[in-house]
């Protein structure tokens, strides 16, 4: 493929490598200076190491900088990591934290521009262009998926249908009647759409739909094969996370062989999650990302907890920006339920709020009709036992509401008898994942 076929916005994808590294270094230096000047936590951590921003003289020097972890966003909730004054911040998004409070991220006008650019480059990489009709079925709202994809697709010159998530029948009606050529949503939701289309007698293979940009949750080659065989579209994996910018950190190209990281905006490292030491190119480890262009909320060495590895060979598409393997697992216990991040610790926080002490509980994940289902089973202790069925039903509802307040999702909750949840070495196995992906 010739790069001249691409939209000019994608030019940085093909930047000569030495030029790319020089761009990364100057942007890294600027980002570190800015974080040092405006983010007290980062300032303190650099001081503790006896470092100054001027000590970053090469890209390798990034390894001397402290990591940022999700708990840092919780501890500085809501605005503690912002590096720009509020009058320059034009947008906030939020995603789940590990316990009660969400994490909040901020964007300046320029951050929105960069984000829009990375989404445009992502869509171009998936073969989209002006004139495409894009059904954006990512959720709109605090979740970054909806608005992120929306701005990028619109800037590309595509016709965006901001349908947001849910209401499967309407999604299929719109897809068919509006002549949709590309869709953005979670891969599991698209599998659900396929399933429903068959029941409604809509043949996706006969529609103009030709590409899907799927992300916000891990998915397998097996799922890709099912999607492509049953709908006759190309299914592309898009990668991103709220803490860094949202979707549009990395994207597959026509070769569907790994995700290209937009390295001019995000500096990627792979580390050993145990020793925290950088790993040689090609080794599997945890992806660590540093933002190079973010103004409102620069992230230095953010531990994504996503396990992946760099490809060592250049991609046949000609992009000079490097590729990582698709994400299959994580180095922490985060669960991704229909695109929403859920931590067992959030479920615990929800239970604690109602019961005062933590009962034995278990999270059971299943996939019904291609949609993730999460059931929380809670043992009824004498402390919370009501001798009325109505009282128990009220307890159940209270716990459901408490968990929903914290996670944003409504779980199925089942009260079970004591000692019915299996314990191994006295400790319950908290998550049983029966999803067959």
């Amino acid at each position, binding site marked *: 493929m010739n790069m001249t076929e691409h939209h000019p916005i994608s030019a940085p994808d093909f930047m000569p490598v030495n030029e790319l590294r020089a761009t990364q270094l100057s942007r890294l230096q600027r980002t570190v200076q800015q974080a040092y000047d405006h983010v007290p936590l980062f300032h303190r951590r650099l001081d503790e190491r006896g470092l100054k921003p001027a000590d970053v003289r090469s890209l390798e020097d990034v390894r001397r900088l402290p990591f940022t972890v999700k708990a840092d966003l919780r501890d500085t909730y809501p605005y503690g990591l912002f590096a720009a004054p509020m009058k320059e911040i034009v947008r906030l998004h939020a995603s789940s934290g590990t316990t009660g409070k969400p994490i909040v991220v901020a964007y300046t006008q320029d951050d929105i521009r960069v984000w829009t650019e990375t989404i445009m480059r992502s869509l171009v990489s998936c073969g989209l262009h002006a004139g495409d009709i894009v059904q954006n079925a990512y959720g709109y709202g605090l979740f970054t998926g909806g608005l992120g994809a929306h701005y990028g697709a619109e800037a590309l010159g595509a016709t965006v249908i901001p349908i947001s998530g849910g209401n499967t029948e309407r999604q299929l009606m719109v897809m068919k009647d509006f002549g949709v050529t590309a869709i953005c949503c979670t891969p599991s939701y698209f599998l659900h759409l396929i399933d429903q289309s068959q029941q409604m007698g809509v043949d996706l293979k006969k529609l103009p739909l030709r590409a899907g940009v799927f992300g916000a949750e891990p998915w397998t080659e097996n799922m890709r094969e099912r999607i492509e065989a049953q709908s006759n579209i190309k299914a592309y994996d898009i990668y991103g996370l709220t803490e860094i910018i949202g979707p549009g950190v990395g994207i597959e190209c026509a070769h569907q062989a790994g995700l290209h990281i937009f390295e001019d905006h995000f500096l990627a490292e792979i580390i050993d999650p145990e020793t925290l030491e950088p790993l040689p190119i090609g080794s599997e480890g945890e992806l660590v990302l540093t933002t190079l262009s973010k103004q409102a909320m620069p992230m230095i060495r953010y531990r994504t907890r996503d396990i992946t590895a760099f490809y060592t060979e250049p991609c046949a598409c000609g992009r000079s920006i490097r590729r990582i393997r698709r994400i299959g697992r994580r180095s922490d216990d985060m669960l991704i339920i229909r695109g929403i991040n859920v931590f067992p610790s959030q479920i615990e926080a929800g239970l604690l709020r109602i019961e005062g002490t933590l009962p034995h509980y278990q999270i059971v994940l299943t996939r019904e009709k291609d949609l993730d289902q999460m059931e929380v089973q809670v043992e*009824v*202790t004498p402390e919370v036992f009501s*001798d009325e*069925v109505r009282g128990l039903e009220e307890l159940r509802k209270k716990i459901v509401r408490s968990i929903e307040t914290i996670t944003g999702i409504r779980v199925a909750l089942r*009260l*079970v*008898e004591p*000692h019915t949840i299996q314990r191994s070495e006295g400790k319950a196995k908290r998550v049983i994942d029966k999803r067959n992906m």
Partner: protein
Amino acid sequence: MSAVNLIAVFAENQLGQMGRITQVLADAGVNIRWVTIATNERLGVIKFLVDKCDLAYESLHQKGWTASLVEVLAIEVEDKPGGLHTVADCLARNKINVENSSGFVSNNRAVLLIEVQDVAAARQILTKQTLRLLSQEEILTL
């Protein structure tokens, strides 16, 4: 002392649960005099009137069941037409809201068990009426 204790046990609404509980009581030598079950689709509460309440509680607790003691009032009802109505009418007139009730007849004596929010207050009101409240001993020797 005219309060009566029932033992309430939490059980999931599954086949055979009742049997597992009654097994525990049988093994402990506890005699069941009366039982009532309330369920919804997934869970249930089984309440027993037993001869050895504390022993039943201990045994169930040891076997890992979630159980509690429920204080109820046992009201003697005349075993003739209008008997229950007299009691119901008295409760209503005195604004005693009954959360749960069950009744049985034994040796020509009828008994109504009621669960109320405030047992002490209800007892006070009811003893001022013509109604007779039975003690745990009395109800077990009917």
